[in-house]
Every structure is written in structure tokens, then in C-alpha cells.
């Protein structure tokens, strides 16, 4: 689970350097149905990502509020983030596919223009193969009570995978009905993925919800008092 959050934070850093609060805020906005990240969780994950040379400190801002560290991806971190956005989740892991991971990865691919359709197709193929692996072998059609323990478990696993596939279909349909997202929601878009015909325009500076923090790209004196 911790690694999943690490991967999501790396993806959130793809468009450009950000500080911890910004990462939390964007995470909680993009994945609003999931549990919001705790600050402690964000900072401990960032510390671990930094230790593993996946992110580094871009600058330290000292304004009126507390000191803020702005992080950016290292090359290995950038590669890992792109891999994470491109690679489907292996449903073979014990306990099935973590729902939070499936949601974060799919929606992040959409938000970051990282070919969400391609990711969903690959995820579908991966899921179908996993469903196939849960099918009984040819001729293995034992309907006895003794076999129920095994078939019952397989049925449950298979139907969970089916539920994931239906979610992917529905989410794909929702995404197709939406306009392409503005990567400019994040400052300094740097993704090379194909985007819409119009160049991204940087968003208006956010009216910070928390007066303690401001957009790192804005001068500190822009903070509301």
C-alpha cells in the first residue's frame, strides 16, 4: 500500500516540481473518492522516495509560513513513474487487485494524458488472462461437495476480476465523454504524451484553501493574510 502511494506521488511529480502539501492536495482532488492522504504519510513517503534516489530536493522555500521543500523527479524516478502509468497491475498478487491502486493508476493516466485507453486495454488483457487461469482444466468438471471448496474460491476470484473489468469499461466510457484534462492543472507540464490540438495553458493560480500555503510558483507575498 505504501509503495502504491509512492508510485502515485511520483506520477503527480511528472508535470513538474511540487511540495508535499501540493501533492497531497492534488492527490485528494484527483482521487476524491479515496481516503485523503495524511500529511505524515506524504512526508514519510517522500523521505523514502528521496532515500531511494527517485526524487530530489529542487528548492527550499522560506516564506512567511513554515519552510517548504519542493521535490522533483530524478531520472530513475521519472522512468519509474512512466512505467507505473503504462504497466497494468498484475491480478495474480495475493488478495486480488488492490482497488485503490487500480483507481489511482487509471485516473492518473487520464489526468496526465498518459494514454489511458492503452493502459485500460492492457489491463483488460491482463485481467482476462488471469480469469482464464482460474478456469478449470478441460474435463475437470467436478460438481461434488468435495470440489466446492476449490471451485468456490476460484469463482469468487474470477467474479472479482470480472467486476474490475466492468469498472474499467464504465470508467473508459466516462473518460470518453469528458474533455481531455488540462495538464496545466499542475504547474510546468513536461509530459511528452500526445495531447489535444491546443497547447496547454497554465491554470489560474489556485485560490489556496489554506492560507498557510501558497502555490510554489507564486511569490510568497501573494499569500492571503
Amino acid at each position, binding site marked *: 500500500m505504501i509503495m502504491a502511494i509512492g508510485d502515485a506521488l511520483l506520477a503527480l511529480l511528472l508535470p513538474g516540481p511540487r511540495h508535499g502539501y501540493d501533492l497531497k492536495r492534488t492527490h485528494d482532488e484527483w482521487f476524491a473518492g479515496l481516503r485523503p492522504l495524511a500529511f505524515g504519510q506524504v512526508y514519510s513517503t517522500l523521505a523514502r522516495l528521496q532515500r531511494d534516489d527517485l526524487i530530489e530536493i529542487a528548492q527550499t522555500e522560506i516564506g512567511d509560513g513554515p519552510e517548504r521543500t519542493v521535490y522533483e523527479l530524478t531520472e530513475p524516478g521519472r522512468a519509474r513513474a512512466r512505467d507505473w502509468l503504462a504497466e497494468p497491475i498484475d491480478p495474480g498478487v495475493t488478495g486480488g487487485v488492490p482497488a485503490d491502486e487500480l483507481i489511482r493508476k487509471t485516473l492518473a493516466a487520464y489526468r496526465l494524458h498518459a494514454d489511458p*485507453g492503452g493502459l485500460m*486495454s492492457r489491463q*483488460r*488483457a491482463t*485481467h*482476462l*488472462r488471469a*480469469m*482464464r487461469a482460474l*478456469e478449470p482444466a*478441460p474435463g475437470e*468438471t467436478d*460438481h461434488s461437495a468435495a470440489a466446492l471448496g476449490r471451485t468456490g474460491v476460484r469463482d469468487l476470484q*474470477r*467474479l472479482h*476480476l*470480472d467486476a474490475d*473489468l*466492468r469498472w474499467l*469499461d464504465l470508467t473508459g*466510457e466516462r473518460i470518453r465523454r469528458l474533455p481531455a484534462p488540462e495538464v496545466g492543472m499542475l504547474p510546468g507540464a513536461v509530459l511528452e504524451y500526445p495531447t489535444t490540438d491546443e497547447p496547454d495553458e497554465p491554470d489560474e493560480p489556485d485560490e489556496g484553501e489554506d492560507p498557510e500555503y501558497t502555490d510554489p510558483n507564486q511569490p510568497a507575498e501573494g499569500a492571503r493574510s
Partner: protein
Amino acid sequence: MSQVGVSDPAEPVLVLENIQHAYRRTIAVRGVSLTVQPGEILAVTGPSGCGKSTVLHVAAGLIRPQSGTVRLFGQSLTGAGDDERARLRRGKLSLVLQFGQLVPELTGVDNVALPLLLDGHGPTQARRLALGWLERCGAQELADVEPAEMSGGQAQRVAVARSLITSPQLMLADEPTGSLDSIGGRELLDLMIGEARRSGAALIVVTHDNSVAARADREIRLFDGEIASEAVLV
């Protein structure tokens, strides 16, 4: 049983090239190309209205596409007359549609025997073989039952028995099993896949059911009349 002509094993059983077809002003299929090899099990999936049934009907020669070419068992259906198309299909291609499509005036066994009777077999032999196939499909009790008295699942069993009796080289099925969450539906699919594996026939199954798609060797997913993705599952 009729001796079907054996095609070159290296030759695809079906090749669709750039098929386009519209119903009135609605384009159902736009530029679909696909190739099916002997023995291959292909699932064609996608949301309602994506064109998957149209593709199947084009493959079966039931719909003449507005553009594109269809090659069945190495021969072009494009430009072939109705008799020629029927001759190409007979005995080599079977079709199971969503609602069974049994002849309402005939009993279960006579429905199953029908392709053999049309092929010139004697009625006694045809009925004997038909009873055998009904039994393999777990539908022997339906031999003397007329379609109006059958449930949807029972009619599908009879339709599958009828589709298998000619040992086709290409089996086409449109949502053949209802829900595969039922044991009966799973058994019916097992039977079709088992027969395809045993005889080396290709099977194209149109389905919205992920459990069915997962049993195929390859999945082609349509969206809005076009192939949106393709996945090899074996």
C-alpha cells in the same frame, strides 16, 4: 455425415478486409479487418451497438457489406451469388444466434437433423446422429419437444447440437450461452470449445460476457464499429 472439403491447413478460414457497413444512416462497422486461423478461438466483444453482431453476420455471409472483402475458406464471397455463398457455407460453417433460431414446427431432434437432411442424408440416419448430438449437449430429453415448449437455455442447447452435427470448420456464435454465471451456460461453452479443440475447427464467439472472452485464444474488442484493441490471451 457429409465429407467436408479440407482446406489448406495454412490458409485462414476467414479473412475480413476493411469491412464497412451501415444500416440506413448509422454506420455499424467501419474499416474492420481480421483474420481467423484454423482451430483458433476468437472472442469479439464490445458494448451494445459496437458492431460485433454485424461483423459476425458479415462473416457468415448473411450480410453483404457495403465495402470491403470477405474470404471464407480461401474463397471470396465478394461478388458471389446467393447460391454460391450458400454452397460455400454449407457443411463448413455453422451459426448459433442469440435466441436459438430453431424451426418452430420441428421437434428438437428434427431441428438438429435438419442440416443433414438438407445435405441429402436419409432421415433414419440423420435422426440417429441428431439424437447422439442432443445427448452430447445434455438435451436428449428435448428430442420430441417443440421449440415453443423449450426454455431459452434449452433452445440454445438444441441450437448448439444442430450447429455441431455437420462438423463445421468454422463455428460462429452470437451470445450463445446467456449468462455464464450459470453452470448450464458454462457447460454449453465448454462443449463448443471442446468440439472446436477436438475437430480443429475455428470458433468465433460474439459476447458481452468477460467470462466467455477469457476462454478465447484472442479477443478483438470493438468500439463504435472499429477495432479498439486486440489481445492475445494464450
